């Protein structure tokens, strides 16, 4: 669900970030009053926990595996405000270190995964759970339903953010500037993947973790024993959540409902939109030309337009109600079955007095002294258990990336000698330059610059480019490849693949494809180069001197610190599971293991949090983050930043006048 840089327009990114700022601010204020001096350690450990379980693989239908996003879970365990901050911090570190999700798209990713997902999930959870007790099954079921609705709402918002790109941002010849496909493709495809695969996995795991925590006697958020005072508050909360939920649910509906305007978009409407966005009044030449040829670039939206038009609103809502209720039925049945199998599990787990093992003379049970090497030799925990293999592989590579992050950063080289703050500012400028560019030449210059800078800093060019290629086109490749063909980019045929129906690779398609891939690659290259050439603690200091709020920097620092601890713990858990695995693990069993594993990890995280709070208090921490003064900028740093600015302005202006 992570959106990379280069597929959303910079204005969309800015708008999403602008929406997130007051949300973060409110969350930080709420948490300051409820958590006090514990705020930093509790949130840091919560974020690290969130990051770690995002690396787990859960078996999903069809032999696939999915990553939990865990926002709803975090909201149920620690509260919705803590979930906002926790998931935001986790995806900030994912963006900076693992190239998962963009830096400029951080606001948009936070909006979907850290705000919409936990808020909607938590609201639905509260509605379904009602006033049931802390230990009730209904609450666990509510957690599953909540997380299912939460992840699907977030996925459809991602679909909307992507889908509005071609509607709002097209170049003069009508080609989309950023993400190429419209709402009719993005929303259904995001929803299909999450309704069928990731959603059920997320729901089951969330419900299981909640059940596990209920059994350990953990008090879920908002389930305090002081019922009277809390109930009043919770009722107020509930109405707030319902309001938010309704707003969120209605916003994509509203967009689709305006679909007849989108669908029958003609030159006149384009002029209006362009006037709204840029303040200038013109009709793209290509648009007019295409329309003269009878081509409606967005006519595929007409189906949506019809279903969304006023006449069909009751039908639309009816379908929505039907969909949601069928989901509820499925989840209820699933929940029942889960409860039953858990109970069966317990019966098996009870020690059976009639089966007391006979003791051998050494005090060990006889079975323990017999060898079973013959039976075990042909069984292994091999490829049959993808959830174990993938999780272990990802945990290991995650740990390795985290541990080796400083490998090149501590070498001597050009970038390493720069003041980290100057470097951070410079790369940010270059990243924005790449993100707003629509010129192959500008993007090529930026990519060449990244390679030269890497070479001058002793960072292997091959490693840089491999990281760029690995993190960028996985997402974009799938979208961009269809872009080359005539059905997505009509134009001059380059290679005709099929005559009837007509399928060809077009010149326009190839250039749109190259542009999208290059833009994403250039933005990723800037972010990767920054983190590869700067030790983590210096990057933090740089953020501080660029006036990033110190509580946020401290939170990132502590989160990263405890990610390494929790990744190791999780790695140990999965390795131990693997070492005891004989033969194929059934999917249900695997999900139970992951669910309980997350529960165990959360309990360990809570215990560690208490210890960290004590350790910080013992050394005089009272809730106020204090840091030592920062280093100064040298002439070299000023020169670097001046060069970057001049280059960025020259490239942008050059593109503007040339193109």
């Amino acid at each position, binding site marked *: 669900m992570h959106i990379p840089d280069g597929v959303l327009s910079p204005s969309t990114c800015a708008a999403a970030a602008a929406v997130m700022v007051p949300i973060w601010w409110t969350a930080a204020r709420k948490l300051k009053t409820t958590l006090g001096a514990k705020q930093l*350690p509790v949130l*840091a450990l919560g974020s690290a926990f969130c990051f770690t379980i995002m690396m787990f693989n859960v078996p999903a239908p069809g032999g696939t595996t999915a990553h939990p996003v865990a926002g709803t879970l975090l909201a149920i365990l620690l509260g919705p405000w803590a979930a906002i901050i926790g998931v935001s911090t986790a995806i900030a570190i994912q963006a900076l270190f693992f190239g998962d999700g963009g830096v400029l798209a951080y606001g948009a990713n936070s909006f979907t995964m850290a705000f919409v997902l936990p808020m909607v999930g938590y609201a639905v959870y509260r509605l379904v759970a009602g006033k049931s007790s802390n230990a009730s099954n209904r609450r666990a079921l509510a957690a599953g339903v909540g997380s299912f609705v939460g992840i699907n709402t977030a996925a459809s918002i991602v679909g909307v953010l992507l889908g509005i790109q071609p509607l709002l941002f097209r170049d003069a010849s009508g080609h989309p500037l950023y993400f190429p496909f419209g709402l009719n493709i993005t929303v259904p495809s995001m929803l299909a993947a999450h309704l069928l695969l990731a959603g059920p996995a997320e729901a089951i795991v969330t419900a299981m973790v909640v059940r596990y925590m209920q059994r350990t*006697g953990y008090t879920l958020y908002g389930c305090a024993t002081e019922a009277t005072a809390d109930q009043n508050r919770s009722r107020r909360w509930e109405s707030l959540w319902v309001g938010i939920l309704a707003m969120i649910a209605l916003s994509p509906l509203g967009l689709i409902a305006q679909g007849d305007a989108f669908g029958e978009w003609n030159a006149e409407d384009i002029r209006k939109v362009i006037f709204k966005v840029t303040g200038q009044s013109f009709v793209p030449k290509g648009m007019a030309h295409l329309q003269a040829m009878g081509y409606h670039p967005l006519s595929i939206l007409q189906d949506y337009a019809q279903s969304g038009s006023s006449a069909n609103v009751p039908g639309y809502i009816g379908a929505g109600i039907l969909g949601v209720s069928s989901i509820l039925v499925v989840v209820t049945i699933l929940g029942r079955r889960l409860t039953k199998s858990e109970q069966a599990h317990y019966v098996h787990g009870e020690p059976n007095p009639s089966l007391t093992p006979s003791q051998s003379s*050494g005090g060990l049970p006889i079975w323990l002294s017999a060898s079973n090497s013959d039976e075990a030799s042909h069984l292994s925990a091999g490829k049959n258990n993808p959830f174990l293999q993938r999780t272990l592989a990802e945990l290991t590579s995650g740990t390795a990336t*985290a*541990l080796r992050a*400083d490998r090149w950063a*501590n070498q001597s080289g050009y970038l390493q000698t720069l003041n980290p703050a100057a470097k951070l500012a410079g790369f940010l400028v270059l990243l924005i330059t790449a993100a707003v560019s629509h010129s192959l030449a500008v993007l090529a210059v930026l990519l060449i610059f990244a390679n030269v800078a890497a070479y001058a800093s002793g960072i292997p060019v091959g490693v840089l480019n491999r990281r760029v290629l690995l993190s960028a086109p996985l997402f974009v490749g799938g979208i961009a490849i269809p872009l080359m063909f005539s059905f997505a980019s009509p134009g001059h045929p380059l290679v005709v693949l099929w005559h009837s129906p007509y399928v060809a690779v077009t010149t326009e398609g190839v250039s749109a494809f190259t542009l999208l891939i290059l833009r994403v690659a250039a933005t990723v290259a800037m972010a990767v180069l920054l983190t590869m050439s700067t*030790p*983590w*603690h210096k990057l*933090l200091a740089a953020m501080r001197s660029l006036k990033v709020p110190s509580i946020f920097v401290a939170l990132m*620092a*502590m989160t*990263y*610190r*405890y990610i*390494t*601890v929790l990744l*190791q713990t999780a790695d140990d858990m999965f390795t131990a599971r693997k070492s005891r695995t004989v033969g194929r693990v059934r999917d249900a069993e695997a999900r139970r293991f992951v669910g309980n594993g997350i529960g165990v990890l959360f309990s360990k995280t809570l215990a*560690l949090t208490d*210890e*960290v709070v*004590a*350790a*910080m*208090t*013992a*050394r*005089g*921490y*009272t809730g106020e983050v*204090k*840091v*030592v*003064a920062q280093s100064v900028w040298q002439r070299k740093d000023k020169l670097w930043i001046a060069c970057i600015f001049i280059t960025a302005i020259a490239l942008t202006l050059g593109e503007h006048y040339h193109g």
Partner: protein
Amino acid sequence: MASSDPSVAVLPLFKLTDVTFRYADGQVALNGISFAVRPGERVALLGANGCGKSTLLKILGGLQYPASGQVEGFGEPLTAARLDNEETAQIFRRRVGFVFQNSDAQLFSPTVADELAFGPVHMGLSAAEVEERVSSVAALTGIEHLLARAPFQISGGEKKRVALACTLATNPDVILMDEPTAALDPRAQTWLLDLLLKLHDVGKTFIIATHDLETVSQIADTVVVFREDHTIAAVLPASQLESNMKLLVQVNLVHDHLHRHGSTLHSHPHGHGVEHTHDHEEPPHQEV
């Protein structure tokens, strides 16, 4: 009144009277604990796993408060009200350092240097003073080469050194330590014991929770022995511990161990961590 009695030359640093502590679930962790710690004294809290040693250390460190009974530190009661006050809390935190058992919990900063600076910075020292503290405490503990490293890039023994160094950086009068020798190899143990001796010579007070019988007489003058029912069995000089095996058996720290060596059965008290040899003849190996 103790303070008006001329025979009492030194006031106790810590004084506990009938202290009882319960966990959140109501389980008792400490039951009627009373003892005192003099300035410059080295006290070991000795007991089996789960007897309440760590809880007691946290109470002494002003991190938890007893359900009943009085705790005094530096002549003043240690209460939540006093330690919630930022000013009195700062004075207390400055004087009491805490080396936790779990180094991963104690080392929460991005680098070792940041970790050493954390205490001094939060005490309000100037940048120059902080730098001085960091470099000298790093030199004392032999971790200068680790300053730029992240806590996850160093070994368990190195973490322990850093944990001790960041506690010393605030120059506390009293150092509380929870199982300091547990994660250390023999060479690192010797290094630690040497450093503790040096610190004792300059007048530092130590209160150390341990179940390590081997080192207890080297790190402590006084031993507080805990029973498994969370009460104190005895407070005695460390030198008398060896001759008190019966007491150690009674508190379940060592146990009458049933040994089987071939066909010979024998029983003797067996302290964990204490090396012992057997002079029985090895029976011939039996084929099954």
